[in-house]
């Protein structure tokens, strides 16, 4: 009896707690929400002023991009520093600090002509001396940069006058222009007596681009202010403020509460949460753009039976790519058939991804000698069942992709297991010593078509990037020729042929290329939608915030 009473007490208490929770919960629903009811669809002339607040998950380690290297650093430094060249909205090279450039007849020498009257943010003149200084630094043995090798190919760098910078390569090097588009030019007058590895300049930089760093609160935010001496004209928005918020869910709450203006979204936030929250759509616009990378399934070509092209093609036919895009990316991606961004000149429009065709897959496997002889549902050859391991690193999207692939392979009688590893072990224990069957990984959709280091047969040593051991003499030839040809039209033909062979050979299965997704408050105007190949960020200097929409609490500073 006593025992029963005690239990009854317990039950009462729990009911009470539950009820209270429910009541409190209901109270929340009915309480008024502080949603601003400003109509963001009015037309205003583009004025300058305002602050754009965005969120990033990581903090830059420093703002000298050649040393820092991580994406947070390049995102911020890209607003502060210029390169000689840049990519325009269609991802074609154009001048940034350089007004023009010439390539000599033997294709070994490139001469850059700087724009006249370039200035650093501190009002000092920016000349070819600064460019030379930057080249010296990036090739200096003591500089702690992983990006030096491309620039060490320059045998002679000279400055005939203050507006001209000339580099000579030992042999023509076509990716050179792309490398100069990626090198931020640093001010010689501030850095010549400094150790670039330790200099305080990395946290207090002076550049020449639209913005300059005003304040860096460690672990909290970086605030950029318009650079009145900018060489490219003036950006419209006065301040860019990047808050460091590591957690995406917290970023999303800050966006909902109108404390930040822009953030990158994941597919669930884009495709599930936003459509379900109409009040958010009143104030926030969604954008999608071509992503910068693709996911692939790569075979270890040194292992049997992956050295057999029929087996690779069979697996390619057996995988349903659309299913992966729909299931993993919630439809927010597209299939690719070459390692180049669709819609750019390097991407071969004639190539189509392998369709999902299990019958063809089975036929190819049969031709390669794989059939289910013992009737256990798994195909086999010489008494050995076709069974292998799909290896990937800790990344939710890649794990889910692996599961979908596993299921489709089962349908054609292949037994695949999935193994997920932390990155450093994945790289150190499996990729470097080539101890794997099949990997799911990603590569970037590079802007320059040169992919020598990924596909050339000479790049297979441990630590190099052709870890799948792909080797095709014709591809080697094309990759070598592509490096020597600086004429874009001739180069295009080379890489179109290269992509066609790669697709046919199927050393990797292209799985999907996810879109870049972002949410930006409607107070920000001037954003191109739909996004051009370079993405919505190509014209941030034209973005503006009409006075009527600017945040009130920010205007007092």
């Amino acid at each position, binding site marked *: 009896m006593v025992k029963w009473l*005690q239990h009854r*007490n*317990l039950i009462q*208490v*729990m009911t009470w*707690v539950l009820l209270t929770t429910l009541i409190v919960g209901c109270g*929340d629903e009915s*309480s008024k929400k*502080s949603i601003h009811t400003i109509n963001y669809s009015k037309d205003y002339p583009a004025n300058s002023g305002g602050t754009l*607040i965005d969120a990033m998950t990581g*903090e830059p*380690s*420093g703002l*000298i991009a050649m040393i*820092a*290297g*991580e994406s947070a650093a390049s995102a911020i430094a890209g607003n502060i520093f210029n390169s000689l060249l840049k990519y325009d909205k269609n991802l074609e090279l154009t001048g940034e600090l350089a007004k023009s450039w010439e390539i000599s007849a033997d294709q070994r020498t490139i001469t850059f002509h700087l724009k006249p009257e370039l200035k650093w943010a501190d009002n000092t003149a920016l000349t070819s001396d600064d460019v030379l200084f930057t080249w010296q630094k990036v090739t200096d043995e003591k500089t*702690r*940069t*992983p*990006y*030096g*090798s*491309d620039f060490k190919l320059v045998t002679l760098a000279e400055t005939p006058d203050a507006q001209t910078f000339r580099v000579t390569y030992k042999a023509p090097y076509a990716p050179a222009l792309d490398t100069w588009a*990626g090198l931020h030019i640093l001010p010689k007058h501030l850095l010549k007596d400094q150790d670039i*590895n*330790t*200099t*305080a300049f*990395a*946290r*207090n930089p002076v550049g020449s681009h639209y913005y300059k760093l005003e304040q860096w*609160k*460690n*672990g*909290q935010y970086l605030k950029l202010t318009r650079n009145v001496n900018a060489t490219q004209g003036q950006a419209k928005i006065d301040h860019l403020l990047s*808050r*460091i*918020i*590591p*957690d995406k*869910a*917290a970023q999303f*709450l*800050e966006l*909902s*509460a109108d404390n930040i203006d822009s953030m990158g979204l994941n597919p669930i936030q884009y495709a599930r949460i936003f459509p379900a929250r109409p009040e958010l759509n009143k104030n926030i616009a969604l954008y999608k753009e071509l992503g910068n990378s693709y996911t692939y399934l790569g075979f270890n070509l040194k292992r049997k039976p992956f050295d057999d092209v029929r087996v690779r093609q069979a697996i390619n036919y057996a995988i349903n790519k659309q299913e992966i895009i729909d299931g993993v990316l919630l439809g927010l991606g597209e299939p690719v058939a070459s390692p180049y961004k669709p819609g750019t000149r390097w991407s071969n429009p004639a190539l189509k991804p392998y369709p999902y065709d299990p019958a063809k897959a089975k036929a190819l496997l049969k031709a390669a000698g794989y059939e289910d002889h013992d009737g256990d549902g798994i195909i086999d050859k010489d008494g050995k069942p076709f069974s292998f391991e799909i290896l990937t690193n800790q990344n939710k999207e890649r794990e889910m992709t692996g599961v979908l692939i596993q299921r489709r392979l089962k349908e054609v009688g292949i037994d695949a297991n999935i193994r997920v590893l932390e*990155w*450093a*072990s994945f*790289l*150190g224990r499996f990729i470097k010593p080539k101890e794997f069957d099949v990997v799911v990984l990603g*590569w970037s959709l590079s802007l320059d078509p040169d*992919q020598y*280091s990924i596909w050339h047969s000479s790049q297979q*040593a441990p*630590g190099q990037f052709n870890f799948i051991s792909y080797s095709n003499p014709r591809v080697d030839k094309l990759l070598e020729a592509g490096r020597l040809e600086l004429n874009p039209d001739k180069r295009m033909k080379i890489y179109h042929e290269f992509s066609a062979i790669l697709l046919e050979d199927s050393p990797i299965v292209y799985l999907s290329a996810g879109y870049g997704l972002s949410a930006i408050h409607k107070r920000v105007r001037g954003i191109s939608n739909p996004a051009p190949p370079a993405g919505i960020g190509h014209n941030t200097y034209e973005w503006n915030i009409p006075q009527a929409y600017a945040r009130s*609490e920010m205007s*007092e*500073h």
Partner: protein
Amino acid sequence: MLKYLLKRFFWMIPLLVGISLISFMIMHLAPGDITSSEASFNPKASEESRQKLRELYSLDKPVIVQYSLWMKRMATLDFGTSFASHQRPVFWQTKDKDGNVTLGMIQEALPITLLINVLSLILIIAIALPLGVISALKQNQLTDRVITLFVFIGFAIPGFWLALMLMYWTGVQHNWLPISGLQSLGHEHLHWLGKTLDTLKHLALPVFISAITGLAGIALFVRNGMLEVLHQDYITTARSKGLNEHRVIYGHALRNALLPLITIFGLSIPGLIGGSVIAESIFAIPGMGKLFYDAVLMRDFPVIMGILTIGALLTLIGNLVADVAYAWADPRVRRGVMQ
């Protein structure tokens, strides 16, 4: 007593060296180094360049050589500079020849974590102590069960989930508290009172979350300690003397029940510098937990070793302080030490 203290103090040095050696070895057992992060798996960064970086960071040398290099620097109390954060000093600020001061990473993160943990410890004691005492006095009654259930819910609830729910409720729906971060954007322009208020508002949720999840341990500890003491003979004696119940409980029982808590607090001193990675990530607080976690992911050895060394030192000091406090509070222990 002094001799005992000195002896204990000097014993800490070989202990620290041993701990640092083991930490260093374990750290190097994990595969990879600063040059093999996922971000550096980039065809533009060649293997030769990465090998050069390894040489510049002395990562190509045998582990024992690297350890002796580290030890040599530590002997002069130099914690070194971070690999990943553009050579920021690991521990304390440095000044270059032009007078630019670069703040140390631990120097910046430690006060933040310390503040949150001390505040939450105070909150825990303020709530757990009365809860534990009431629970013990009303043993097996409704009040006791409600309290136990409450502290267990606090203990069992996933902190990140509660944090997100509270952020949504107080930040998005009602705009009572800031959602994340340490300071508002206009913090510098505020009066000192406004600054304090602003910081407290930002810390309210992190401190609350950290306290609610840590409540159960202390509350149940006090409850059990009280129950044990209440059944002792001297409590019966005190009651039979005719002392009022208030004196019996707060004058005799509670004081004795609190003794073991000293050990717990002593042991929680190193915990004060270790932040919670999850809470710090969700609330965007640049504290020790996030610093350590990022350093491990990046294989930023100087930062990892810096934090581990300071943690080890504080653990040893915490033990010492707990022992001394125990001797001070309990005459029986004191006598044992003296002999």
